């Protein structure tokens, strides 16, 4: 199965890093993957998105016109990508920041209060990791183990202390989405 995911939000919310973690996780599992940032005169606070394609075969187009999944972290991104998600696809909404629901009945929509969940863990900044936990749980595209390995790789020795909190965030996201 080919997963074509778009993660979108404001610059500074960690959209690019979330995509990068998934890309490393896919590499960990020996899958083909491409990571393509929206690229323009971007700045902190502006809108940004990243396209991640995870595939058992070599990735053709790294550009996604109709994603199989979307993770949206702000309202403009919700408005832009909600109509584009492929029929039968999944949409993950950071519901602390996006107060919208889609009228579409042909896609699965999950509202996740990621900041609140992250805050309970002690740091709002792991909200992105919470969303990733929810994403892998619902799509089954990557295992928690390979995402943990990816986190380990990204943090390295210097930021090793952040690993337990991020693993807890992944698990919290997984647990939250189980109730849907």
């Amino acid at each position, binding site marked *: 199965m080919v997963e074509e995911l778009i993660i979108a939000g404001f610059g500074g919310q960690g959209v690019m890093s979330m995509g990068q973690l998934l890309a490393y996780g896919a590499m960990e599992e020996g899958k*083909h993957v491409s990571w393509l940032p929206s*690229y323009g005169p971007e700045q902190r606070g502006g809108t940004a998105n990243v396209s991640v394609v995870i595939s058992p075969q070599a990735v*053709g*187009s*790294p*550009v996604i*016109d*109709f994603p199989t999944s979307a993770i949206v972290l702000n309202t403009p991104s919700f408005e832009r990508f909600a109509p584009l998600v492929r029929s039968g696809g999944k949409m993950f909404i950071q519901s602390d920041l996006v107060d919208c629901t889609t009228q579409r009945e042909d896609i699965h929509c999950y509202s996740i209060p990621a900041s609140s969940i992250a805050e309970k863990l002690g740091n709002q900044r792991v909200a992105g990791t919470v969303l990733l936990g929810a994403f892998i749980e619902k799509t089954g595209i990557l295992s928690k183990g390979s995402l943990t390995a990816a986190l380990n790789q990204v943090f390295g020795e210097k930021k090793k202390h952040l690993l337990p909190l991020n693993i807890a965030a992944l698990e919290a996201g997984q647990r939250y989405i189980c109730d849907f």
Partner: protein
Amino acid sequence: MKGNEVIGEAAVYAGCRYFFGYPITPQSELVAYMAKRLPEVGGCFLQAESEISAINMVYGAASAGVRVMTSSSSPGFSLKQEGISYLAGAELPAVIVNIARGGPGLGNIQPSQADYFQVTKGGGHGDYYTPVLAPSSLQEIVSLTREAFRIADEYRTPVILLGDGMLGQMMEPVEFEDEKPLPKVREKKWATTGTKGDGPPKTITSLDLNDTQLEIRNNTLQQKYAAIKEKEVRVDEYLLDDAAYAIVAYGTVARIARTAIDRARKKGIAVGLIRPVSLWPFPATIISEYSSVLKAILTVEMSAGQMIEDVRLAVEGKAPVFFYGRTGGVIPTVDEILQQIDRLTEEVAI
């Protein structure tokens, strides 16, 4: 790794130890990578005060017989054209990277293929060509960067590696181990490394005030280009065996086209892909051969239609050639190309 960084590591892997550059989006990561990487392998990185300065530093290093590279993006690449003409005239090996962006003028920083004419038809003044290699994936960057240095050394010519902002900015897994390292730089007898008092002085120049002599020099260049045309054509073919239609596309657009082709095949349309990997020399013979059995050809580019001229020359009217292009940094989508494939089948049916 990002595409830009892969070019840097691939160059180091191919034995490049000298890099002179000037930052410009969307290729700046390559300059930054070389600044960090070259000192680690005993090489030299220098940020020049301009693109013009950088290309002339390349001229100097190439004259001394070392593997050397510079890089830029469209507007900066234009500034290097005078220097590239000098490199071609003086028969100096070097690799020049163009991670193209939307133009003309200062344009923007999004991906584009509108520098095709400039890189494949010489670009600077005088009768010269530069071999042009156009990778479409990060793994292919590794092999083609190596090839670029090989061709440069073998034929004593500047070689262009052409990508776009998408290729430069995206990430994909790459393996360097699978790639054979390029043999060490052989002694270049022509290089100006000093005669140590032994033998006549060596000179490297593109200047020849005697017209007869300059014509001889031009003839030598043309013979070299004929040899490159004969031996260095590269093309990738996809699902062409039973194809009634073919898309011709290169670089990142070829990948988008490949996905569109996969989807068209599911709908039962027999379409394949001809992907020129060397843009000069252009794979004209292969396109010519296929055109006599194809019903129609579609050229897709991120330009207003540049490579299509070479495609039409190769096809020589044997099949209708259609065009689809986006400009200004807009990337054609899979869906758009799919619609064009449908149009192709309808037009030919009429």
